[in-house]
């Protein structure tokens, strides 16, 4: 299958190295530097799983750690990994993954009947029923509920991989290598502080990789590369990518999970798969950036509805279009950045902005690019089942009480 949604150029992937992988038994190709998510989207795969209760179709919603939907079961090095986020898993040669919580398959899922009976299963319905006759709870109702539970399946084999832990001390721990993280690390390191810079993703730079910014006379990305190279050469600095700081405990003890081999087909001998760091820091800077919050409208969970920041990230980092007829629904300027990126790549987006008369440079830029902008407009509901195909939109009334 060819990559219909991959742009001819652009992105930070290594186009000279093609990688083959399997999803739900089918073979696809991606490039070095892809995540499983970006490679699947490039191949036009938008349906990756089913929701927990109603078995509604699930696609990709984010592009990183914030992904709520794209949960897959992985096979790596003859080991099973349940509940892996496709947006976090880097692609490697021979990767095998499959959808979870669907039977017989993700495309045709018997459990989806729950979706059509959803009216009878409102939140917390189980507290109100299954009480009569008494023995049925034990013998029938609960066993059925239990059987339907869970996403991935855990292996009962011994985990043969190697895991290590390590204690470390530092003057300053910085979580996130975006512009503020890098600038802080650089300033502290130059003054002799012992610095640990942790980046959750494989690439350093954070928002510098997806935003059109310049620092001095360099692009954001060039600046990030320069600073990282310099930081790496300093003896008082530890720079770690694929390292997620996930716990902040008493007396400035932080815990970081370093994924050393998860992006490789196989761990090297004697090298751990993951390493847990216990870091005692004198000071901590949390510069992890922000996660975009979704807007609320009907069916905002169907595949193809996603965060606009994620759409931008797939474009800028992976050279992948999440769709060819994008509708950007926003209540602030950030949506315009995504729309402009689409436009630059020959795709015509439509922007719906809830605001009445917003004014800023980027809006002007969008207008100059002849992007279709509808102000005071909202999405009422997305349409489609396994993939979004249209949306009901409406203009907000003057008193904002109806549309």
């Amino acid at each position, binding site marked *: 299958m060819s990559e219909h949604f991959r742009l001819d150029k652009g992105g930070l992937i290594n186009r000279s190295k093609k990688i083959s992988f399997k999803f739900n038994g089918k073979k696809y190709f991606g490039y070095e530097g892809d995540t499983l998510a970006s490679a699947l989207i490039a191949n036009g795969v938008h349906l990756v799983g089913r929701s927990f209760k109603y078995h509604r179709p699930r696609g990709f919603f984010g592009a990183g750690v914030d992904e709520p939907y794209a949960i897959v079961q992985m096979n790596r090095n003859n080991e099973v990994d349940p509940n892996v986020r496709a947006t976090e898993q880097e692609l490697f040669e021979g990767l095998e993954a499959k959808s979870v919580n669907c039977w017989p398959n993700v495309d045709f899922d018997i459990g989806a009947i729950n979706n059509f009976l959803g009216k009878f299963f409102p939140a917390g319905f189980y507290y109100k029923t299954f009480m009569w006759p008494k023995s049925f709870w034990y013998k029938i109702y609960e066993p059925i509920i239990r059987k339907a539970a869970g996403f991935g399946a855990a292996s009962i084999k011994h985990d043969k991989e190697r895991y290590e832990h390590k*204690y470390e001390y530092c003057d300053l721990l910085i979580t996130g290598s975006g512009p503020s993280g890098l600038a802080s690390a650089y300033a502290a390191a130059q003054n002799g502080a012992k610095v640990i810079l942790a980046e959750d993703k494989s690439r350093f730079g954070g928002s510098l990789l997806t935003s059109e910014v310049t620092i001095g006379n360099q692009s954001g990305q060039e600046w990030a590369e320069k600073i990282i190279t310099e930081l790496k050469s300093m003896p008082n600095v530890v720079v770690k990518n694929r390292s997620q700081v996930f716990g902040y*405990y*008493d*007396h*400035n*003890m932080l815990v970081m999970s370093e994924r050393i081999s998860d992006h490789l087909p196989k761990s090297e001998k004697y090298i751990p798969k993951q390493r847990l760091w*216990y870091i*005692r820091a004198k000071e901590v800077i949390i510069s992890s950036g922000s996660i975009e919050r979704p807007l609320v409208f009907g069916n905002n969970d169907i595949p193809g509805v996603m965060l606009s920041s994620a759409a931008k990230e797939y474009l800028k980092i992976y050279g992948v279009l999440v769709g060819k007829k994008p509708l950007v629904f926003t209540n602030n300027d950030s949506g315009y950045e995504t729309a402009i990126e689409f436009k630059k790549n020959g795709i015509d987006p439509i922007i719906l902005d809830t605001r009445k008369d917003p004014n800023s440079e980027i809006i002007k830029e969008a207008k100059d690019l002849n992007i279709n902008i509808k102000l005071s407009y909202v999405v009422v509901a997305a349409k489609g089942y396994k993939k979004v195909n249209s949306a009901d939109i409406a203009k907000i009334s003057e008193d904002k009480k109806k549309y």
Partner: protein
Amino acid sequence: MLHIKCPHCGLRSQNEFSYGGDATVKRPELNKDVSDKDWDNFVYLRKSPRGKHLELWQHISGCRQWIKVERDTLTHEIFKTLKASEEA
């Protein structure tokens, strides 16, 4: 993980220490009549305050000394540490 300043060895992590409870409890004096109430007080009753708490810890994997630690039981902030022989 708590970071406790041992008055002998300096700042060390919690896993070198072992907890010893309320340091303000006084054992009834030896060789004197002790009422049941006093024994009850000493053996079982504890104030267990929310806030500042003077407590004993032993630096068991360090200098093996008992020390006193004044710690907030809500925030875990440690205000001071003393040798066991020192009065707060």
